[in-house]
């Protein structure tokens, strides 16, 4: 979707202002949100693409006025409601109205070292032919889907060059909506700054964007 989250090339957000000696967390609640990611994704069976899609659906000014971990909190609540694991009333009251006996056991302390050190790769073993090879010129499809996509607006309808083939990965544009993993090759595509931003951009500079077979056509 063409949402406000798709920040590349936007103006008006001001200076960057890094914080000196920034702590890992600024509040206790931020820690809990970070810590809840793994258990909630495990319990709900949702994938990271579904998680990101929920954040993008927050509403523009809500998205802009809230922080990173508030975005996460929003997505947790939505994913849990969608999966039927909690109700609105439970989220309001903080009290479980009923305990579903059928759920699998939660992630435990002893699982954490393995889970954090392993993660969950989106790489797939499926044998899928790549549509492009290194150095191929590619045109990014001029698509404006209303669903989740990892193809940012600023590269659409632009010509780039395949820099490297990362291999076969889950396709988030379908996986985010329960439409299957549709594994396909994901590439790093190199765009000249001038192709993206016009003649005033410095000549030699470039931007590398990871895109999938379904985003590209031969340029």
């Amino acid at each position, binding site marked *: 979707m063409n949402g406000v989250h798709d920040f590349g090339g936007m103006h008006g957000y001001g200076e960057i202002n890094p914080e000196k000696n920034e702590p890992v967390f600024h509040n206790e609640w931020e820690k809990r949100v970070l*810590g809840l990611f793994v258990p909630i994704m495990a319990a709900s069976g949702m994938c990271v693409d579904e998680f990101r899609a929920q954040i993008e659906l927050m509403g523009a000014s809500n998205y802009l006025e809230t922080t990173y971990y508030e975005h996460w909190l929003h997505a*947790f609540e939505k994913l849990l409601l969608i999966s039927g694991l909690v109700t609105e009333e439970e989220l309001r009251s903080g009290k479980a109205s009923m305990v579903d006996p059928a759920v699998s056991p939660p992630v435990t302390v002893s699982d954490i070292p393995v889970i954090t050190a392993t993660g969950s790769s989106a790489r797939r073993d499926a044998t899928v032919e790549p549509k492009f090879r290194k150095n191929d010129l590619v045109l990014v499809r001029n698509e404006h889907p209303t669903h989740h996509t990892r193809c940012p607006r600023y590269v659409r309808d632009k010509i780039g060059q395949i820099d490297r083939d990362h291999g076969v990965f889950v396709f988030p544009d379908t996986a985010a909506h329960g439409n299957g993993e549709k594994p396909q090759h994901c590439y790093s595509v190199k765009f000249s700054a001038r192709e993206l931003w016009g003649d005033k951009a410095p000549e030699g500079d470039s931007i590398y964007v990871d895109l999938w077979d379904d985003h590209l056509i031969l340029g």
Partner: protein
Amino acid sequence: MSDHESDHEHHHANSRPLSEVELRVKALEQVLTEKGLVDPDAVDAIIETYEEKVGPRNGSRVVARAWSDPEYKKRLLKDGTSAIAELGYSGIQGEDMVVIENTPDVHNLLVCTLCSCYPWPTLGLPPVWYKSAPYRSRAVSEPRKVLEEFGVSLPTTTEIRVWDSTAELRYMVLPERPSGTDDMDEEALADLITRDSMIGVERLKPIVKGAS
């Protein structure tokens, strides 16, 4: 007080009071715990992992090894994931790593314009500015101005490459080894290497002998 601190991530003053957020987080964790879906001790263990164990020191060690061992550097640039795993760093938000090398002629810069993807196993959790609208919007369209705000002024002859993490690959910059570090061992080298140099918003300074 802690409410005030969180304003670092807010761009506007009239944001929601945090107490509301705190209540939501508490309610959420409580319900999930009561339902047996979440074990709070596991939540604690994750927090401890990312607050104390995983951070940019990991990435520094990778870089120091690459500077010290040409064969390791080759492996690192060819297959970042397994070379980084040799040092014991792997997992969430670093399942598939790509390491890109700064040279005298090429400077690399990382961003995630669509959300805030970042290589956790080597750099830890991302700083607030990396997740902010100003950085995410500007890094791809005016990287030189962004670098200047970080105090890095590069000549037009230096090619800038910006890497937008739009997929599940996680990038890390291999900074140039500064001059004056020839006789340093890996541990001493690791001390020089900053998080920002591995994101690409900093160039490491040459070490001048005798300087304090």
